[in-house]
């Protein structure tokens, strides 16, 4: 009851005019909650309250803000933090060895796209904000370099206080100027410098650093996603001085303020890091160092975990690999599972007939028995949940009962297929109409999903062939529109509607809209959900967006949400799965029991 009440109270508090968030470092003991919210879990409650109040006095904000901040700190206590489970006393020392299936092209997170950069390099850097590493939904935002932050009444100005005493690994102090320079590098890159996610920051007008400890972000319009965007795991904080001398310096060098110091990178082999003794989150990290070994082959990754050459692979493994490891290692291996913020979508090329007709597109989605598909495919590949446009179980996800009202999501598949056949007849599509599904030449989950869809479409009288395209040629095909129907996919680094829905805007707004449609209604819904600060209103707008995208217009066909499975050797502790394989990779809270 207490938990539910507190959640409701927090929900109301978020609507109030000024909000403030506090993130405090307590000197001891070294527990994850200590640095995330300033709450030493193993200490007496009275002491905790005193230290927190001291901190809040320093922040000195209005009373509602105080209540919000205090409640934010109490929540983890009442909900029971995963980071400080009973009997899990963190142990210091040891080297964590993990395998990474991909290798970073360069070291610059502001420009690269692959998780192969995040996994070995995130431990060297800090962020302004980060995702709480113990939040299983991967959505709770806490301070990293930011000590506290406030938001103006009109939601246009976000002001951050930067922790004092942070130093780069080369000994230079970190100030607000470095944070500003890093965000300028991301949002307003100098000519000739590519910033991959610049488009996500359209709402941001400017970044300024009025003093050494304050960073101010000014927005053009209120953005519900502002904090999420600032907590992006890609937004490593770089040195202003190094960026000034050479905006491309970080492509070939590493110098951050993170829990580990870069030792070496041997291309094709490994990245090595050692403990940063001056890390600003006191008492962390627990590990002496880490070794990220690049292993491209999936079977070699599993063999590495099985043979004890590696503790974990942080991206995800297939159900078959999970079962194999379970059988071979028994109690020596543990598994964590979560819905994955990745999904396969089917893009209908609106410039090709008959896929320009929404009745045809609706027929194709109505033909799918998603529940049977989920049951069958979850046994063999990395998909599981029937979902809409948001990861199931997260803040803005449509509840299952409501989802069933969307085209192709109903339980009565016989009726849906009868409707699909009627729509095809009505739109003049002949029986045994032939088309090609172009699929990406990657085994999991693309090929099983493609095969399953073809079978489903055959049941409404369509004759579909699958053409597998080499991964390297796949994006050219998609971007060039050289397809009738194609498998598309999307992976998010954060469960945040602005990020997840961006690609579905009209083709003139989103270069990743491979279905090549223009839909001003959808664009308007996107814009409105992005700019509202009223959560209930945002939920309604996202629902409307979803209904238009996958039901009324059926611009895209959502298949299934991916399902993330992580296998870890028993000695590894302090790492918790989230829906994104991009977050929670700083490794400062990870420790080894042996």
């Amino acid at each position, binding site marked *: 009851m207490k938990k539910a009440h507190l959640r409701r109270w927090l929900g109301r508090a978020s609507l109030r005019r000024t909000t403030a968030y506090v993130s405090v470092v307590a000197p001891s003991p070294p527990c994850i909650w200590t640095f995330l919210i300033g709450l030493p879990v193993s200490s007496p409650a009275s002491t905790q309250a005193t230290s927190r109040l001291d901190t809040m006095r320093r922040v000195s904000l209005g009373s509602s803000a105080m209540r919000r901040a205090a409640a934010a700190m109490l929540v983890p206590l009442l909900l029971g933090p995963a980071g400080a489970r009973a009997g899990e006393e963190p142990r210091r020392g040891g080297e964590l060895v993990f*395998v990474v299936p991909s290798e970073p*092209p*360069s070291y610059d997170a502001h*420009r*690269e*796209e*692959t*998780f192969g950069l995040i996994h070995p390099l995130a431990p060297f850097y800090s962020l302004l904000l980060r995702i709480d590493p113990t939040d299983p939904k991967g959505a709770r935002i806490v301070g990293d370099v930011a000590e506290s932050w406030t938001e103006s009444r009109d939601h246009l100005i976000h002001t951050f206080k930067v922790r004092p005493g942070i130093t780069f690994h080369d000994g230079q102090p970190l100030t607000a100027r470095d944070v500003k320079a890093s965000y300028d590098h991301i949002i307003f890159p100098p000519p*000739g*410098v*590519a*910033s*991959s*996610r*610049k*488009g*996500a920051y359209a709402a941001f007008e400017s970044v300024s650093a009025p003093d050494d400890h304050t960073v101010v972000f000014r927005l053009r319009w209120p953005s519900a996603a502002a904090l999420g965007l600032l907590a992006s795991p890609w937004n490593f904080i770089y040195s202003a001085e190094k960026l000034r001398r050479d905006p491309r310096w970080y*492509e*070939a060098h590493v110098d951050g303020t993170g829990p580990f110091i870069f030792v070496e990178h*041997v*291309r*094709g*082999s*490994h990245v090595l890091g050692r403990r940063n003794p001056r890390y600003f989150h006191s008492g962390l990290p627990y590990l002496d160092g880490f070794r990220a*070994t*690049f*292993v*491209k*082959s999936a*079977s*070699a990754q599993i*063999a*590495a975990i*099985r*043979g*004890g*050459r*590696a503790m974990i692979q942080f991206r995800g493994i297939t159900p078959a690999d999970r079962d194999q490891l379970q059988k*071979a290692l028994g109690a020596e291996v543990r598994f964590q599972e979560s819905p994955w913020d990745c999904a396969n979508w089917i893009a209908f090329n609106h410039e090709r007939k008959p896929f320009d007709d929404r009745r045809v597109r609706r027929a194709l989605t109505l033909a799918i028995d998603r529940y049977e598909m989920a049951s069958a495919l979850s046994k063999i590949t990395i998909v599981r949940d029937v979902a809409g446009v948001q990861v199931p179980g997260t803040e803005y996800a449509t509840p299952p009962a409501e989802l069933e009202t969307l085209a192709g999501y109903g339980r009565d598949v016989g009726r849906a297929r009868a409707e699909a056949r009627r729509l095809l007849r009505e739109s003049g599509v002949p029986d045994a109409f032939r088309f090609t599904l172009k699929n990406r030449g990657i085994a999991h989950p693309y090929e099983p999903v493609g095969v399953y869809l073809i079978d489903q479409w055959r049941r409404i009288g369509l004759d579909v062939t699958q053409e597998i395209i*080499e*991964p*390297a*040629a*796949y*994006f*050219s*095909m998609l*971007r060039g529109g050289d397809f009738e129907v194609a498998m598309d996919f*999307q*992976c998010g680094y954060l469960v945040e509607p602005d*990020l997840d829905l*961006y*690609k579905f805007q009209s083709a003139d707004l*989103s*270069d*990743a809209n491979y279905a090549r449609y223009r839909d001003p209604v959808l664009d308007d819904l996107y814009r409105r959900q992005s700019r509202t600060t009223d959560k209930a209103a945002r939920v309604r707008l996202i629902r409307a967006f979803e209904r238009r995208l996958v039901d009324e217009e059926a611009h895209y066909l959502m298949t299934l949400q991916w399902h993330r499975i992580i296998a870890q050797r028993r000695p590894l502790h302090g790492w918790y799965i989230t829906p994104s394989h991009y977050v929670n990779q700083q490794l400062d809270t990870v420790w080894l029991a042996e």
Partner: protein
Amino acid sequence: MLPYVVKRLLLMLPTLAGVALLVFVLMRVLPGDVVELRFAGESSFASKAQLDIERRRLGLDQPLWLQFVQWIEGVVRLDFGRSMWTGGPISREIALRWELSLEVAILATTVAVLLAIPLGLLAAVRQDTWVDYAVRLFSIAGLAVPSFWLGILMILGLLVAFGWLPPIEFTPVYVSPGRNLAQLVWPALAVGYRYSAVATRMMRSAMLEVLREDYVRTARAKGLWPRLVLSRHAVRNAMLPVFTVIVLEFAFLIGGLVVTEQVFNLNGLGMLFVESIAHRDYTLTQALVLVVAVVTVLANFVADLVYAWLDPRIRYA
């Protein structure tokens, strides 16, 4: 001998120039480009303008003939340029993997030679006996079983029997010979076995042919000790085609162990090759093809020299 060597060396140049032109054109014909793969892969936010910035930076907006000329100018100066994927010097990327690939090739060749020559010889001498059948079975199995599959079996066998896996990172032999061998001996065995199967069959058939030659019959007829007949008259002559097979296979091993390297997680040239093509890293792929072409041409050159040295009829012709 010198005119022969010079002639063979000069013949290499048009071969390598042809390879360079061919690989340059083929890479450009393939769909997909490095910029799209790097920036439009997992993200929804990379705009066309961003992609164009990168294309300009890599010189991909220039005419093809100009790109080719600039590349060839570099190659002539032994400067292969920079990888389009990593931005690092290509010479460093190759040098990093060269040691491992060369070592695996040498080890696999050693395994192959140690198996193939005695087995092929034995099978020929004991033709149509159980020894011959056993050797033929062994060599046919080697041809039928892909080396990567054998590698997977080895790994599984080690895991199941001993709960042990070979190291997954390369350690140079001068740093730790034990650790180095613990990693490389397995792929060398897997590849060497297949390699030996080819050489064993070649050795057997060459020996059978030589053993039927008049000069061998003459040597036997004059009462020469059978072992001497074999070693001095038969084996030396039978080795000519076997040597060719060994040299060509060795050249192939330098860049061709694509799947085996993945199975054993070897950071070698084969894996680099696959990745460079998968990333559409034009400059790196072009350099790797040239390197492998040079190794192959040189291996052929060495084989020709040895032939000419062993058989004077060749150099005089």
